[in-house]
């Protein structure tokens, strides 16, 4: 067998309708829509899917719901739910299932109508009895606490946080599907309403409807399908806590572990990455992940994002779809980040295309910095 045969690859990708969908649309409707579009993208049919990977805060047994809706009976099911990083974990799990022949065509899928139906119904927060008396607002509070600590230990400033939001907007302006495409300055962010200090409204990701689907196969099948495969070169999962009060160090996430293992598997380093997707639930998170994945030293993330380095036209393209901050954030964002990485590798990104992109890194976060999953995708089966 060749290297290609032993590899696994993403062969089909598609978003569902995004932004604000028709009232009465259910999350499973968006999941099915995205699935059909992803199958059309790669030329496979519903009957080809024999592995289903799904998670949703609104649907307790998501793989079952989508299988029923699509009228399929997969022989491999995975409902791993670790928050927004679930879909990068699903890349890992689909890889293992495909490698062992437990399935031949894996579908990873998500959909949410959190804007249309209200976030409280769409994403009910687990109640922690040791904290309920204090009325914490999660996930927001966890990230504002982390930002407060990063500012205290490393002198990270509000302006540096705002630069992350401004950079995201420069890419959103190049993406016709982005929710916010108007101009945005650092001062605009600093003047937005404080929600949980040090974070302001424009430091926080969007609350939108949306979803997506990706299809994975082994390498031998990938090369016969419609699109250029995006090979999974490295992938890893890590966790350090569930509740923010249990995070050992608020400035150091488990991305240190997931990134190290993903880079080791791929036999690559940060300097090899052409395009990045770093989960931007809040402006603090890309700063943390740039440090923890090794793009800059711990504590240097704030200065690293200054000067437009991560913006359109900058040295390190990040969140080229406009991110959760400006493009779309349907509650669990990881799948959308995977889709953008695959499109960059295929050269399908038009105005926001990173020229010659051959290696993409997708890092996703789940819960309250609780789950960290890193994937590295490439245009070739091996680096």
């Amino acid at each position: 067998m060749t290297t290609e045969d032993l590899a696994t690859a993403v062969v089909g990708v598609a978003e569902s309708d995004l932004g604000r969908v028709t009232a009465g649309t259910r999350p499973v409707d968006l999941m099915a829509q995205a699935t059909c579009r992803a199958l059309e993208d790669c030329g496979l049919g519903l009957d080809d899917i024999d592995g289903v990977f799904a998670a949703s805060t609104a649907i307790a047994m998501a793989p079952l719901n989508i299988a029923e809706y699509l009228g399929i009976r997969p022989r491999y099911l995975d409902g791993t739910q670790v928050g927004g990083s679930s879909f990068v974990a699903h890349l890992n799990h689909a890889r293992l299932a495909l490698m062992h022949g437990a399935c031949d065509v894996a579908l990873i899928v998500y959909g949410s109508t959190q804007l249309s139906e209200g976030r409280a119904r769409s994403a009910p927060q687990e109640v922690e009895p040791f904290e309920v008396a204090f009325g914490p607002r999660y996930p927001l509070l966890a990230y504002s606490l982390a930002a407060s600590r990063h500012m205290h230990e490393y002198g990270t400033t509000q302006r540096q946080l705002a630069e992350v939001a401004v950079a995201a907007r420069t890419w959103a302006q190049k993406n016709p599907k982005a929710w916010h495409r108007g101009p945005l300055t650092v001062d605009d962010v600093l003047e937005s309403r404080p929600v949980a200090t040090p974070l302001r409204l424009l430091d926080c990701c969007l609350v939108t409807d949306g979803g997506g689907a990706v299809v994975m196969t082994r390498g031998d099948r990938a090369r016969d399908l419609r699109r250029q495969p995006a090979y999974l070169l490295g992938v890893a999962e890590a966790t350090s806590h569930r509740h923010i009060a249990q995070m050992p160090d608020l400035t150091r996430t488990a991305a240190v572990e997931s990134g190290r293992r993903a880079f080791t598997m791929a036999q690559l380093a940060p300097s090899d990455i052409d395009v990045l997707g770093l989960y931007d639930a809040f402006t603090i998170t890309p700063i943390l992940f740039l440090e923890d994945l090794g793009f800059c030293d711990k504590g240097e993330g704030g200065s690293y994002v200054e000067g437009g380095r991560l913006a359109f036209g900058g040295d390190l393209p990040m969140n080229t779809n406009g991110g959760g901050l400006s493009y779309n954030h349907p509650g669990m964002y990881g799948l959308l980040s995977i889709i953008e990485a695959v499109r960059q590798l295929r050269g399908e990104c038009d105005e926001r295309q990173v020229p010659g992109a051959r290696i993409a890194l997708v890092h996703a976060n789940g819960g309250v910095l609780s789950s960290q999953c890193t994937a590295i995708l490439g245009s070739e089966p091996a680096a």
Partner: protein
Amino acid sequence: MSPDAPLETYRTRLAAGVLAFQRDDHDRAVFPPRSVTPHGNSGSLRWDESEGYGVIYAISTLSKSDGSCRHLALVNLDEGFRMLSEVRSAGRTPRIGQPVQVRIEDSGSAGPAPYFVIVGS
């Protein structure tokens, strides 16, 4: 294994005015309370009472639409555990590094709860 539900023991102690936590066989503090010793250590957990002194590790002020605000913090207790709480500071904005002390007060719907005040205020 503790025969009692850890959460219930914790609540019973709060009602008696005590912030309770656990220690493992190496005297390391464990919080929140649980039935199994974490970190792969064998042995048991025993209950202990915190003196209630600690330091603010992280802080965030939540704003409400009516203009009111609350200060929520992660507090490192001197005994070596960390918890989320609200700092009731009578108008002063709490800062990371400030020493705080527990004040168990009624939270209303959730019963007695361990709030914190800035030491010296």
